[in-house]
C-alpha cells in the first residue's frame, strides 16, 4: 500500500465521516439523520483502523452500528410514525448555534495548527493491539473494567425500568 493510496483512502473516509456527520446535523428529516449517522460511524471506525485501533474499530461497528444506532432508530420509530411529515425536526436558535460552531471550530483549528508542543513521540503504535488490550484490561485496567460493567448493568436495568413507564395515576407530573 503506497503512501499516496493510503492518503487517498484516508481522505475518502475522512470525507465520508465529515459530510455524513454534517448531513446528520443539517438534515431536517430524522430518518435521514439516523441513516446518515450510520455512515459517520462507519467512517469513524475506518479512521480508527488508520489509528491502529482495529479492535476499537470493530467494537465501534458492533456497538454503535449494531446497538446504539438501532436503538436510535427504534426511538425514532417509537416517537413518530415514519410516514408522518412531522418527522422533520425544527431548528432552534440557528444564529447563535452557527456562531458558536464557527467560533469553536476556528478556535480549535487555530489551536491545533499553532500548537507545536505535541510533537509525536518516536514510538508509535503499530500493528494489532488486541493482545495488549486483553492484557491491559485484565491487569492494569481491571477495576475500571469492572466498574464499567456494573455501570452498564445498572444502566440497562434502569433503561428497562424507565422504558416500561406506565401511564401515571397522578396528573401532577
Amino acid at each position, binding site marked *: 500500500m503506497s503512501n499516496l493510496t493510503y492518503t487517498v483512502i484516508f481522505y475518502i473516509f475522512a470525507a465520508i465521516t465529515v459530510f455524513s456527520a454534517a448531513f446528520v446535523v443539517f438534515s431536517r428529516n430524522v430518518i435521514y439523520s439516523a441513516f446518515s449517522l450510520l455512515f459517520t460511524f462507519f467512517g469513524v471506525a475506518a479512521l480508527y483502523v488508520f489509528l491502529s485501533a482495529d479492535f476499537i474499530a470493530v467494537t465501534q461497528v458492533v456497538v454503535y452500528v449494531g446497538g446504539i444506532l438501532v436503538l436510535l432508530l427504534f426511538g425514532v420509530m417509537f*416517537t413518530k410514525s415514519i410516514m408522518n411529515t412531522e418527522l422533520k425536526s425544527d431548528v432552534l436558535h440557528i444564529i447563535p448555534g452557527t456562531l458558536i460552531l464557527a467560533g469553536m471550530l476556528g478556535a480549535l483549528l487555530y489551536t491545533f495548527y499553532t500548537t507545536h508542543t505535541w510533537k509525536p513521540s518516536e514510538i508509535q503504535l503499530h500493528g494489532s493491539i488486541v493482545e495488549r488490550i486483553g492484557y491491559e484490561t485484565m491487569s492494569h485496567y481491571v477495576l475500571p473494567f469492572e466498574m464499567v460493567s456494573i455501570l452498564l448493568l445498572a444502566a440497562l436495568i434502569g433503561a428497562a425500568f424507565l422504558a416500561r413507564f406506565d401511564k401515571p395515576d397522578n396528573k401532577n407530573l
Partner: protein
Amino acid sequence: MEHLIPIGLNHYLTISALLLGFGLFAVMTRKNAIVVLMGVELILNAANINFLAFSKYNGGIGGVMFSLFVIVIAAAEAAIALAIVINIFKIFKSVDISSVDTMKE
C-alpha cells in the same frame, strides 16, 4: 499541499474538531431529542478519535483503553437517554425539547 500528503495528528484532530462542532451544533439547535442524542454520539466519537490519535502518536495504550470505556458508557448513555426520551414523549406528547422547560420555574 505537502502537509496534506503525510497523514499526521492534525488531520485527525481536524476531523474530530469538525465532528465536535457538528455535534455541538446539533445539541444546541435541533429541537428533536433524537437528533440531539445523535449530536451527543458525534461528540463522543470526536472524543474517541482524539483519544486514539493521541494514543497512536504518543505510543501509549491509555487512549485506546479509554476509548473502549467511552464506547461502553456511550452505549449505556444511549440506552438511558432513549428511555428518557420515550418517557418525555409519553408525558409531553412530543420529543420537541424546546417545549420541555418545566425546569424553568
